[in-house]
């Protein structure tokens, strides 16, 4: 059950996790990208946090839409439009419901996943954040309640699966075969996104 409070914790947890892992994200992006993923995400979550301190929201959808707007206008790079579009669609799917059941939430996440796919023209196995979004959403879609520990594990394994992939999209694609052997930074931050949600939901229950 996701209330407006849970949505807020989700975003706050995401902020914490991003800031804790900022250097790690930067290091990952230096290996196969341009080294700014940690910086980009940190800028986004800090701006989002400021916004959350200032405004109050009636529904999870309203809160997530506001977060989407911050991500779109503050992150830039590849991750800004991707997280921004995903959250925008999640919020749209949430509509003005005051609470979301696990099933509602899975529909929201599915909309987010589709947004990442569409905006990034990403396919499975191309070594992008989609390789976390897709398995996480696909695994749990259709279930009545979410096993949050299992979801976290799925996300973690999905991140690991990117190591062996040969990048086809994003900057890592320029490396061709040299991208193999490295974790995709956006996949790593997406794991944090789902972990933040799981932690918020588990605390709620």
């Amino acid at each position, binding site marked *: 059950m996701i209330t407006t409070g849970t949505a807020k914790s989700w975003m706050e947890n995401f902020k914490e996790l991003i800031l804790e892992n900022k250097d790690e994200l930067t290091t990952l992006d230096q290996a196969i990208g341009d080294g700014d993923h940690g910086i980009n995400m940190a800028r986004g979550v800090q701006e989002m946090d400021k916004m959350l301190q200032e405004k109050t929201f009636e529904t999870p959808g309203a809160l997530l839409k506001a977060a989407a707007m911050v991500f779109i206008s*503050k992150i830039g790079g590849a991750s*800004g439009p991707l997280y921004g579009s995903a959250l925008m669609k999640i919020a749209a799917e949430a509509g003005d419901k005051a609470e979301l059941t696990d099933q509602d939430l899975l529909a929201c996440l599915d909309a987010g996943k589709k947004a990442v796919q569409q905006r990034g*023209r990403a396919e499975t196995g191309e070594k992008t954040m989609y390789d976390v979004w897709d398995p996480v959403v696909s695994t749990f879609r259709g279930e009545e309640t979410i096993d949050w520990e299992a979801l976290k594990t799925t996300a973690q394994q999905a991140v690991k699966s990117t190591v062996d992939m040969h990048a086809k999209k994003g900057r890592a694609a320029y490396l061709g075969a040299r991208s193999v052997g490295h974790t995709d930074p956006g996949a790593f931050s997406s794991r944090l996104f789902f972990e933040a949600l799981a932690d918020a939901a588990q605390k709620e229950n």
Partner: protein
Amino acid sequence: MKKLINHVDNIVDEMLDGMTAAHPNRLRRLEGTTVLVRKDAPVTGKVGIVSGGGSGHEPAHAGYVGPGMLDGAVAGEVFTSPTPDQVFEAIKAVNGGKGVLLVIKNYTGDVMNFEMAAELAEAEGIQVRQVVVNDDVAVEDSSFTSGRRGIAGTVLVHKIAGAKAAEGAALDDVHAVAESVIKNVKSMGMSLSPCTVPAAGKPGFTLGEKEMEIGTGIHGEPGVERTDIKPAAETAEILFHKVFQEMNMQAGDEAAVIINGLGSTPLMELYVFHHAIDRLLKDKDIRVEEAVVGEWMTSLEMAGVSFTMLKLDDTLKKLLDAPSDTVSWKRG
């Protein structure tokens, strides 16, 4: 990290204000944005041209804002695409009623953010068209990937599309000539040292004391191979041949050539490099009226060079030679 800056968070902001302070008769910053436009924007009855991207590539792109080139340049954080709202502000500010062309370098982030801005502009009834520059032949082209990067060849798109727009051409025609530049321009770079994104505080990659990287991108993205340092002449040959083999050029053809320093390579070395390129051009009997040697699209303080060649026809040549009056590119 040794940089002449104040706080890492304020670099882009202070740079933009520094630019308008230095060039108050040429450039204007849209308040509350990271957009620099021509002092007199919008120019009524002229197609507006907007480019931009992450910062750290100066003089790209604000150095090319002015009569005969760009109407507006959008600056992102260092090496990070600007956001859609910023691009949208630029589009609105330069729209003189004939629509706006977006010149985008082919990076996933740039493409997505500019695309979202175009959607916002179209929703407000502004006619927008886009071109995506992908001149970097270091990376193999493939329909399965997002394709080749846009690098220094982009400046020739600014120049030529800008000249076409200055003639009063319609958006479709400006778009068409930009596409024609993109089809005919190829580039490739190499580096001797990495660069440090200020907020990251450490170099993006490392190269041994005797190593060089062939095919590096302008954000330090790796290229084709890492080898022992080679003499300038041999390096020129590698870049030239890779570029040339991707072009459809014959003896007697005319070309425009850019020798682009990536940041800390002295002009002295760029001319030494061009000395080798000049011989290769003569070998192939390619005519170049005047080579453009200097720093046009940099990568912070990276040491290295990129080589760009554009096959010219009469139309492109006339537009390339047309007057322009910007901070970093003056002609005529």
